[in-house]
């Protein structure tokens, strides 16, 4: 057990545990926010696990989740749009906290990887993760009024 796996364990127990509690209780607006944030927390811990096991191929799991996690949240934002018009699911404090954690994880992994193709891949994954998270949060809080409804 090294520091990377320890960090992934702490992130899973703290972040994903909180997300699970948030998605299982409370109003619908809180549940969709928790679902959105869970994908970025799990993605960050998958990247940490890839470094901890010293298998660069495991980074592909994080890449897949960085692409498909926001897609799943957008599915909920689109199909629950009628239920979410009454109480907007906006939690920008939590969103920016998660973005900060993701950025810190990606920067730490980049420092560990050193310059090269692996670092570029990590940066692409991080950009997809943070960008997708922000887009999904904006969609949940009703930011895209033009494409809403139907």
């Amino acid at each position, binding site marked *: 057990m090294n520091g990377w796996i320890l960090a992934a364990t702490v992130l899973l127990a703290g972040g994903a545990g909180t997300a699970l509690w948030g998605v299982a209780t409370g109003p619908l607006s809180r549940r969709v926010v928790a*679902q959105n944030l869970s994908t970025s927390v799990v993605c960050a811990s998958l990247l940490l696990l890839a470094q901890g096991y010293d298998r660069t191929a*495991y980074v592909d799991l994080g890449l897949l989740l960085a692409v498909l996690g926001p897609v799943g949240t957008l599915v909920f934002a689109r*199909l629950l749009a009628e239920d979410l018009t009454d109480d907007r699911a906006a939690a920008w404090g939590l969103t920016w906290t998660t973005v900060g954690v993701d950025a810190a994880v990606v920067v730490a992994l980049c420092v560990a990887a050193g310059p090269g193709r692996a670092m570029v891949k990590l940066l692409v994954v991080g950009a997809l993760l943070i960008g997708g998270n922000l887009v999904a949060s904006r969609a949940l809080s009703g930011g895209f009024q033009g494409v809403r409804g139907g």
Partner: protein
Amino acid sequence: MADAVIVVALLLTAGAATAAVAVRDPARQALVLSLLGLFLGVVFTVLQAPDVGLSQLAVGSALTPLLIMLSVRKVRRRGKEGGK
């Protein structure tokens, strides 16, 4: 000590599965179910089966919620039309 991450992933999976059963509304169940898919992917990863984890993440994070939400939407619409 090295198995701590496996224990955490299994506990999260068990918690998500229990919550998915305990929640009654299908739309909210779909939300919990997408988390369950993520945690299962993590379990497969920490058990050193990343290929299984990859397909689990692909199916569990976007595809299963989409199918369930489309079904819920269709059932609700049919209910509004008068039970046809």
